[in-house]
């Protein structure tokens, strides 16, 4: 497969396939994941090749999907469940927060919960309400869960396999806007980076942009535009939201003295608030300006005709960079 150029959707599909080939205990379950291959086709062809016992079309009940996956995990399986859209995860909220997240803890490590909950997240696809949410902070706030977000095909391919191999429950966020957007070359011969590690995706010297999932592309575009104006922006793809991998962030901010967090989620009590607090605690004497946040406004996700006003874009990111330099 080396040299193959694939979309994020295809890369995730290939990663799932590889994980299922490598471990017969891996099961895929969710709404429409079988014959249809999922509404985004991430599980395309898996049921045909692995059978209905391993790729399970579920009744339309999210709590049921996650709750039964808990039982499968207790029986020794590694369920990978698909929540069809971000806004549909809330019926499963109790199972995720009270059961999945706490099973290992309550059992004093006796009952492992190796489960992956895949959630297509974020906006920008012109969808009706409940289809464009960014619920990551709700899960990152919950001890016992790990939360990661992929931003590109190469990460998608590796991260899904690593999440499945992880003995802890992982909320796996997939930027749905990126599913079919860009292609990248997969090279199976190269060893992947660790799952719970952030990564500098563009080197820069003047300010640090922190992004994950769909806003990595936004941040990279902003950095490219800033370069035209003579500003050198570093971009970090956080990749892991819980636990956070702050070492590369601190290293970067100590160099640049400025940080701007970019996410689609509401700014109030979003990941940016935590990042800002930690950077302030650790890099206080290196900071030239307060950490600034660019994100979704603290409104419900708006009607799709004005969603681009809600979502952080290149200009709002650069505006925040300007404000950072204004201090």
């Amino acid at each position, binding site marked *: 497969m080396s040299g193959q150029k694939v979309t994020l959707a295809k890369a995730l599909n290939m990663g799932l396939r590889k994980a299922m080939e490598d471990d017969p205990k891996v099961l895929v379950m969710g709404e429409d994941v079988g014959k249809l291959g999922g509404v985004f086709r991430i599980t395309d062809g898996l049921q045909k090749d692995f059978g209905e016992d391993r790729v399970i079309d579920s009744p339309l009940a999210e709590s049921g999907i996650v709750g039964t996956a808990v*039982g499968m995990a207790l*029986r020794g399986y590694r369920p990978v469940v698909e929540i069809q859209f971000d806004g549909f995860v809330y019926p499963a909220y109790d199972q995720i927060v009270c059961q999945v997240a706490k099973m290992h*803890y309550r059992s004093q490590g006796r009952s492992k919960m190796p489960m992956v909950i895949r959630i297509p997240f974020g906006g920008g696809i012109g969808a009706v309400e409940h289809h464009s949410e960014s619920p990551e902070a709700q899960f990152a706030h919950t*001890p016992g869960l790990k939360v990661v977000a992929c931003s590109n095909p190469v990460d998608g391919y590796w991260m899904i396999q690593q999440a499945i191999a992880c003995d802890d429950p992982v909320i796996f966020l997939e930027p749905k806007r990126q599913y079919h957007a860009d292609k990248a070359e997969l090279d199976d011969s190269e060893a992947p980076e660790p799952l*719970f590690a952030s990564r500098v995706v563009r080197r820069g010297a003047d300010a640090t942009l922190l992004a994950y999932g769909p806003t990595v592309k936004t941040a990279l575009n902003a950095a490219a535009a800033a370069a035209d104006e003579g500003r050198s922006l570093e971009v970090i793809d956080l990749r892991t939201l819980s636990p956070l991998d702050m070492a590369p962030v601190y290293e970067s901010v100590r160099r640049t003295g400025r940080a701007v967090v970019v996410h689609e989620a509401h700014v109030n009590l979003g990941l940016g608030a935590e990042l800002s607090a930690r950077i302030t605690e650790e890099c206080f004497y290196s900071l030239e300006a307060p950490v600034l946040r660019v994100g979704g406004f603290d409104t419900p996700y708006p009607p799709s005709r004005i969603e681009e006003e809600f979502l952080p874009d290149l200009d709002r990111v650069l505006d925040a960079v300007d404000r950072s330099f204004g201090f």
Partner: protein
Amino acid sequence: MTQHPGFGPDLAEVFGPAAQDGGPELIQLLTPEGERVEHHDFRFDPGAGVDEAETIRGFYRDMVLTRRIDTEATALQRHGELGIWAQLLGQEAAQVGAGRALRPQDYVFPTYREHGVAWCRGLDPLKLLGLFRGVDQGSWDPAERNFGLYTIVIGAQTLHAVGYAMGVQRDGAVGTGEPDRDTAVVAHFGDGASSQGDVNEAFIFAASYNAPVVFFCQNNQWAISEPIERQTRIPLYQRALGFGFPGVRVDGNDVLATYAVTQAALQRAREGQGPTLIEAYTYRMGAHTTTDDPTRYRLSEDVERWKLRDPIARVQVYLKRNGLADEAFFAAVAQEADELGVHLREGCKAMPDPAPLSMFDHVYSELTDELTAQRDGYAAYLDTFEVSAGSTTEGAAR
């Protein structure tokens, strides 16, 4: 109020005086007076080559000891040794009947009140107390005796049971005809939980995948202060039909009937015939928990009426009247109960508080860097106090 014909039953019909003994659908093999009765579909069968009287004496012993666990734990709460206790008084037959019908390979998902089932699974009852004392959140290994941890969020475990049963199916441990291999899963819940979405979703998933699961609902008539008619306007067991699998109502105070019905439902599951709902019709003689005051919401005459249907007394009467147990047997069981009481009292008081830093253990399969930093920071903070020497690493007995 006039009912339109053809639109279902009147609540008075379902819960009125005629139905208060469980109604005509109630499966009973031993009456409250201790008389054995026949049922056209179910009979008590302890198994080939097993002495029937011996088995029933065993049930009596299980129920007496289960009740003792309950009364001791209640007393320990009153003495301040437990923070709270969820009482099972009156539900001993339902739990022992259901618990004794299991085979070792079967798996149980309990609520927080299944002390009698835990007893049947061979769990040291002392282990049940840790959760209620506040020293752990479940101290037993679920895989060791196929008995899950207690679940507090009402009904959540019913989905776990169905998922586990789906795993059993995938392991090929259903319908092989091998008695030691074919496996059933039991989901315990109560009448209150029957209103939860999770329980209804569990019914749907179990039916859809024909999962080898038995839904065992102890209808003890009360969800804290809310009576059964707040949860349902038809008998609970009848709900199963709407989901596409059989439901039965058994006298939950009759250990022989509960055993027989559960055994049959488990066998259906093991053979691959899918889920069953058992409504064990019983009564919560105690409070919801030790923090509850049932005198605020129910009549003592109801409690008095149910006292006449005591699950233990009827077995005792049966054994005595038929000469199946002598005074020495009853004395021996009483003696054993006293010893169990001592075990629980002394064991409970000796349970150490967990070490403060143990709260950081097992959040994840490996401690994360973030939690390591928090733990080490708190340890350093504790070490600034003189008295903390050692307390960060070892539990201190109260």
